[in-house]
């Protein structure tokens, strides 16, 4: 009985913490919307009830409803953007389990995009082979910070940030190729549209696009969910996952146990990179957008959103599926806000606030854990001898 309680309380507190930051984020978002709507009312006239109604109807409601605000296109859009988000979330979450902070998901994602488009346009491969290509390119880009970390003890965050930019500009330069790159469609100032020029390379939709009336809704989401489940199994059920977590929790103890921690650091980064690269493949091979080498001077936001997705889910692969869907939900909803009342940027601001609060998920979790832990301990104290606290290294029971 006791066992089940405490086990459940761990994951419940994690879930509660995540829900709590979403709630707080939404409240703050609503306050922002009211403030903006109020500023708007000062210009055009209108009383308080008007202000609130406006904030709700043209701002908050679309955000809450997300893709459902414009069925079924919106839902399709939401699902399409969730798939790569799940992958970058997994990328960051997987590295977290090994005690590494993969801030390089954006760069690995960029390389994955290059790999996918290169395989599609230059090598004219079918979609599944292009996905493998994207995965490999991402893996290589993940391996570099991993190698630096394992063998030269250089912090992976620094290397990864550098390689984010190196990756971005290298990809841009190669694709643009002075305006005459093979992959570059000079008229559109983007890479060639796969759907029209290389239809074989587009991930099949099995009728999803018809159902959602949205061409970019493909089976990518199912692939992403399948990978998430796979990663869950690897982390929880295999000796490899056991080793990775041991390295992440206590590197020295892992070494003592004969685990090759250097190899595990590299492998963990390789897999993280592969996951991010796969995500880019899902995005670009679904034909959601084309790469624009002239305008892509910032790293893809999906890479960084992966950090929030992972944090919001406490790095649990199954949780990442839902947190990615949620983030995609509110950002899709943001696109449906009334642009005449709220500047389009406000959607980003609000999802930004929620994502920012996601970073506190861990904090809330610790606080919740402490609350429930206190209750538990008090209960124990009533009918048992005092249990030693961990810090005290207390000693009891040998008598």
């Amino acid at each position, binding site marked *: 009985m006791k066992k089940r309680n405490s086990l459940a309380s761990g994951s419940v507190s994690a879930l509660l913490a995540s829900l709590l930051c979403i709630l707080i984020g939404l409240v703050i978002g609503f306050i922002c919307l009211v403030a903006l709507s109020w500023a708007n009312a000062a210009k055009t006239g209108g009383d308080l009830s008007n202000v609130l109604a406006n904030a709700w109807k043209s701002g908050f409601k679309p955000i809450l409803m997300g893709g459902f605000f414009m069925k079924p296109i919106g839902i399709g859009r939401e699902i399409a953007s969730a798939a790569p988000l799940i992958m970058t979330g997994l990328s960051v979450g997987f590295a977290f389990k090994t005690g590494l902070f993969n801030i390089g998901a954006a760069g690995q994602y960029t390389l994955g995009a290059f790999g996918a488009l290169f395989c599609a346009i230059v090598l004219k491969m079918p979609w599944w082979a292009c996905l493998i290509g994207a995965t490999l390119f991402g893996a290589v880009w993940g391996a570099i910070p991993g190698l630096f970390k394992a063998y030269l003890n250089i912090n992976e965050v620094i290397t990864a940030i550098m390689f984010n930019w190196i990756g971005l500009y290298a990809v841009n330069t190669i694709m643009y190729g002075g305006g005459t790159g093979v992959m570059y469609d000079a008229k559109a100032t983007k890479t060639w549209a796969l759907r029209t020029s290389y239809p074989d390379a587009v991930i099949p939709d099995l009728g999803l696009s018809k159902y959602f009336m949205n061409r970019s809704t493909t089976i990518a989401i199912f692939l992403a969910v399948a990978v998430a489940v796979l990663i869950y199994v690897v982390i929880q059920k295999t000796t490899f996952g056991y080793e990775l977590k041991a390295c992440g929790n206590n590197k020295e103890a892992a070494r003592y146990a*004969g685990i090759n921690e250097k190899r595990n650091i590299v492998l963990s980064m390789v897999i993280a990179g592969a996951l991010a690269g796969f995500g880019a493949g899902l995005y670009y091979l679904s034909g959601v957008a084309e790469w624009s080498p002239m305008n892509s001077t910032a790293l893809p936001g999906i890479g960084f959103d992966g950090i929030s997705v992972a944090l919001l889910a406490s790095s649990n692969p199954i949780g990442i599926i839902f947190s990615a869907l949620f983030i995609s939900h509110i950002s899709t909803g943001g696109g449906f806000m009334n642009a005449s009342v709220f500047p389009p940027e406000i959607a980003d601001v609000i999802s930004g606030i929620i994502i920012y609060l996601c970073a506190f998920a861990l904090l809330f979790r610790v606080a919740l854990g402490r609350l429930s832990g206190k209750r538990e301990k008090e209960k124990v104290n009533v009918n048992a001898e005092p249990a030693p606290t961990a810090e005290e290294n207390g000693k*009891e029971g040998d008598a």
Partner: protein
Amino acid sequence: MEEYVIEMLHITKEFPGIKANDDVTLQLKKGEIHALLGENGAGKSTLMSVLFGLYQPEQGTIKKNGQVVEIRNPNDANDLHIGMVHQHFKLVEVFSVLDNIILGVEPCKGGLLQKAEARKKVVELSERYGLKVDPDAKIEDISVGMQQRVEILKMLYRENEILIFDEPTAVLTPQEIDELMEIMRGFAKEGKSILFITHKLNEIMAVADRCTILRKGKYMGTVDIKNSSKEELSRRMVGRDVEFAVQKEESKPGDVILEVKNVTVPSKLHKNNAVKNVSFQVRAGEIVCLAGIEGNGQTEMIYALTGLTKQSEGSFHLCGQDISHTSIRNRSKSGMSHIPEDRHKHGLVLDYTLEQNMVLQRYWEPEFQQGGFIKFGAVRQYAQRLIDQYDVRSGQGPITAARSMSGGNQQKAIIAREIDKDPKLLVAVQPTRGLDVGAIEYIHRQIVAERDAGKAVLLVSLELDEVMNLSDRILVMYEGEIVGEFDPKKTNVQELGLYMAGARKEGAEQ
């Protein structure tokens, strides 16, 4: 002199879920040495922290000379002339002795330091109590024993009348311990009152006038040492009779299991070698102990032997097989078990459950995995067997988080895991560090049982009692070299102490 200088009456201090002190009373007479005895986690440190102003008690009063006082922080304690030598010294390494002593109470005139006056006072104090401290030496250049004297001088400089010593002998050689006892007696004669925290019974018998005993946060009484015995103290502390002498037969050494040849290990702290050209053997069925003061190369020696670092020269042979350059996993496979010095750093993954820790070295064996998938049922069963067999106690059995277990049970878990591997060589580094007499007794019995089962045991210990009681052969290490080999039956603590301090050295014996 029946008047109490400090009275702590009915002190209760609670932490979430635990009463660290439950109605504890401690009365300190003027000019006495008062020992505070208890197992780990019995609440000694908490009680002293209350007296020193680090914690506020929920209940109870503190009186000084009969007056109720409130001690809200260490400054209040200092104003009441209460001083403390902490277990881990609080000194600035790169400062001189004098600078450390005056730190916080610097004599100033017009914003300028007036060191000359301070120096006079320090030298005077040092001479008066025979502390022999050089005020201009840098802390990093002087021995641990000297550093402790600097801490003592800090208390004297602040004119403290009540001196608290928190496990002061843990880091000292036997000779240094004797000198410290002498110094403490000197203080008592001068009318200073001393509170002496320890769990070493011999020291209490030697130096204390009275002793207050705590068990699991509760007050177990105060006894006059004159009318008491070691046995009585330990019974009150643990709650049952404890055997001090390790029961063991004569050892019957067999084949050479471990052969260490000319091993040199570079130091991570300085440019010199930590281990210099060391050779020795361990045979089946004997316990060989590497004795020495902390930091004389024992740790590095064991790291090299177990594969955690690389030796720069020399070789290790386990059962005739050269393992000098093989991986940690291979050494473990060839029959080496390692009870590490630091159970939190190396021994356990604290965020793993007990069962996950129990297979830390064996999860890859076919018994526990198939095709890369962990057999959770087998792991649970195995952990349960070890828990039952070795009496590892925890809140929730196999799924207890290792972090939440008591130190003694964490150590028992490691010992169960290492012994159950059925090794040929058991390397045990300070296996009883920080544990109390009950757990020590148990662990010693396990180690002797391993020896009797024909295993070779290499023990590293800083505790001379353990060295003398447990080993069949003692190798003393000093500054990275083995300076002497002894039969524990033919030597004594004093002799070992001289070798450990580097005062004597054997020429050719090994």
